[in-house]
């Protein structure tokens, strides 16, 4: 199982930018249960992922719950070790005990309240990565913390507060300040705005973009929300059951998704514009994602795929390039026409979906 190494090697050749982080054939399995009476279960969280994160880009990772996107993020920063495969940041392994590399890789978590210690003041929380990097005086630490708080748009007076005194948006800003304290090159942001309300979400997303521009940061941006990912990302990787099924430049992906799953995912997102909503038909996938305990043979998506054929059960499709920099893992790219997205035919049925003439509506 795994992405064909040949395809994986050529991924790194695209773009011309320097890869900051390289993942090659990464798999991750978790074993669960297993006692005297119960058999052990193996969760196949990642099933052969090869990706490059290029310096200065935002690589958006999208997919639904259980697709392995958070596991991928944790492997990228070295919180998990892959079961097989390699992860390299500037040629070094993030999971090794290498403190200079560790601080260059930082993470922003989904639940801002849960990721800040309730017993520590903000100043101590943000100063922790500073201390981890070496001896630093209290005065100097405080000066740096105030600088960082201002950078994320928080008043210096917040330094002496406790997390519970802050709103969700402010807590997430503290999480960002703490990540910045390490002077990171790469930040993995795992659903950083999904617990925030719309108005707070917009503020935090704008902040992340500004910081990237000012500090030349690289982001691995993980989210289930395709609108948020479009706003943030230069490239997109779509994951399904622990594999990357599509990878491409953001705009290319949103306008011409190639993989049937990516097409369905794209069409399932409700658009906050009733004129567009009434004009389009939605591709509604049947059934649920298979259990990661027992993966289907061949293509992992075939059990829900509207165009699956007999070959899909036998041969696992590898990630191949269909347009410059735009990769998909499907035997029948093009057969499931993404123009379906803009057809006005109504009805949720997918089995009898035939390609429809394209209508100009989403522009």
């Amino acid at each position, binding site marked *: 199982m795994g992405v064909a190494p040949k395809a994986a090697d050529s991924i790194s050749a695209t773009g011309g930018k320097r890869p900051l982080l390289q993942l090659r054939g990464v798999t991750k399995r978790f074993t669960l249960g297993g006692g005297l009476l119960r058999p052990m279960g193996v969760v196949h969280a990642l099933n052969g992922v090869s990706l490059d994160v290029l310096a200065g880009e935002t690589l958006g990772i999208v997919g*639904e*719950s259980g697709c392995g996107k958070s596991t991928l993020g944790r492997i990228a920063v070295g919180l998990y070790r892959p079961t097989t495969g390699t992860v390299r940041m500037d040629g070094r392994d993030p999971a090794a005990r290498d403190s200079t590399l560790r601080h260059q890789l930082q993470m922003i978590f989904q639940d801002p309240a849960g990721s800040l210690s309730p017993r520590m003041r903000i100043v101590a929380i943000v100063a922790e990565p500073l201390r981890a990097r070496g001896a630093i005086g209290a005065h100097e630490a405080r000066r740096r913390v105030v600088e960082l708080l201002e950078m994320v748009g928080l008043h210096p007076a917040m330094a002496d507060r406790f997390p519970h005194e802050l*709103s969700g*948006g402010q807590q997430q800003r503290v999480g960002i300040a703490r990540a910045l304290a390490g002077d990171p090159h790469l930040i993995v942001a795992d659903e950083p705005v999904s617990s925030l*309300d*719309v*108005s*707070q*979400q*917009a*503020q935090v*997303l*704008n902040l992340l*973009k500004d910081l990237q521009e000012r500090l030349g940061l690289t982001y691995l941006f993980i989210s*289930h*929300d*395709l*609108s*948020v990912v*479009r*706003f943030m990302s230069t490239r997109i990787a779509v994951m399904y059951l622990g594999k990357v099924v599509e990878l491409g430049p*953001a*705009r290319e992906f*949103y306008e011409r998704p190639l993989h049937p799953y990516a097409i*369905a*995912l*794209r*069409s*399932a*997102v*409700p*658009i*906050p*514009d*009733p*004129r*567009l*909503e009434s004009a389009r038909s*939605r591709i*509604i*996938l049947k*059934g*649920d*994602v298979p259990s990661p305990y027992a993966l289907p043979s061949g293509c992992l998506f075939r059990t829900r795929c509207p165009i699956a054929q007999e070959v899909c059960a036998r041969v696992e499709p590898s990630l191949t390039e269909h347009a410059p920099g735009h990769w998909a893992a499907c035997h029948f790219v093009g057969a499931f026409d993404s123009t379906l997205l803009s057809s006005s035919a109504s009805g*949720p049925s997918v089995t009898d979906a035939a390609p429809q003439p394209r209508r100009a509506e*989403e*522009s």
Partner: protein
Amino acid sequence: MSDAVLRVDDLRTYFLTEYGTVRAVDGVSFTVHPGEILGLVGESGCGKSVTARSILRLVPPSGRIVSGRVVLQGRNLLELSEAEMRRIRGASVSLVFQNPMTSLNPALTIGWQLEEALLAHQRLPGSMAHARAIEALREMGIPEPARRIDDYPHRFSGGMRQRVLIAMGLLNEPSLLIADEPTTALDVTIQAQILELLRAASRERRMAVLLITHDLGVVASICHRVAVMYAGQIVEEASVGELFANPLHPYTRGLLRSLPSVSQDRERLASMPGAPPDMIDVPIGCRFRQRCVFAEPVCETPPELAEVPPGHTVRCWVSQRDGRLEEVAG
């Protein structure tokens, strides 16, 4: 227009806390008609869920419905006895909650729970209740319902559980279904399935639906009308097409502009400054004025809802006077 299934009039639900009175719902009025899906949208803490619970009188003990009327098919629910109320809940009004993981009893089979919901309101032989429960699961698109009915909830995925809950909500053919963030915990491809089911159920049964959500995309895709809540009040109400094309309240407009788009590239999001007010200490006058770029001295007087274009009401002095929101430079 046919008679409303539900008419809520000047509903006020307050919570008494040690810090003061939280006016969670503060003078909310709306109607829902047969076959209509009304979206009630707003951010966390705006009072949308408390409104839903107040309709069914399921407010937590620290809360009190202090005034208003909740008229369901001609009867004011706030005047009924608790016994009468129990005959209404789950029969003429059903509530589907946000979290499909905790709304089912893990120790009872799906079938047991569905049949209980039926038998609580109808006299039926057990075999018939069983058959009706299987049929309800089939209608919700659950494969092999006759076999799955004896399964326990943990054997169902999140999307499947939400289908079971909707099936349960529809069992007694309610005239009103209240769905509180029914798809928030679900993935988008599953959300699309569930929204389609809700839409079909409402259309086929001429059932009124009150859909509580924070997601304007969901509103645009299945609602007919929408009411926007802010700090315990409805600030704007219109048909979905009108509200999205011509938002007249600065808050509604701010919400729409702060959304990232799946169909367009955007450089920056127009974010509203600040955060919603502390509900114990609500600003005097318009509750949005401290965050509002259109605010004028007149906004220190509390605005009332008024119809600006026909069928479109808004609680804002400026757009009531000008008929629109004039773009502010910068």
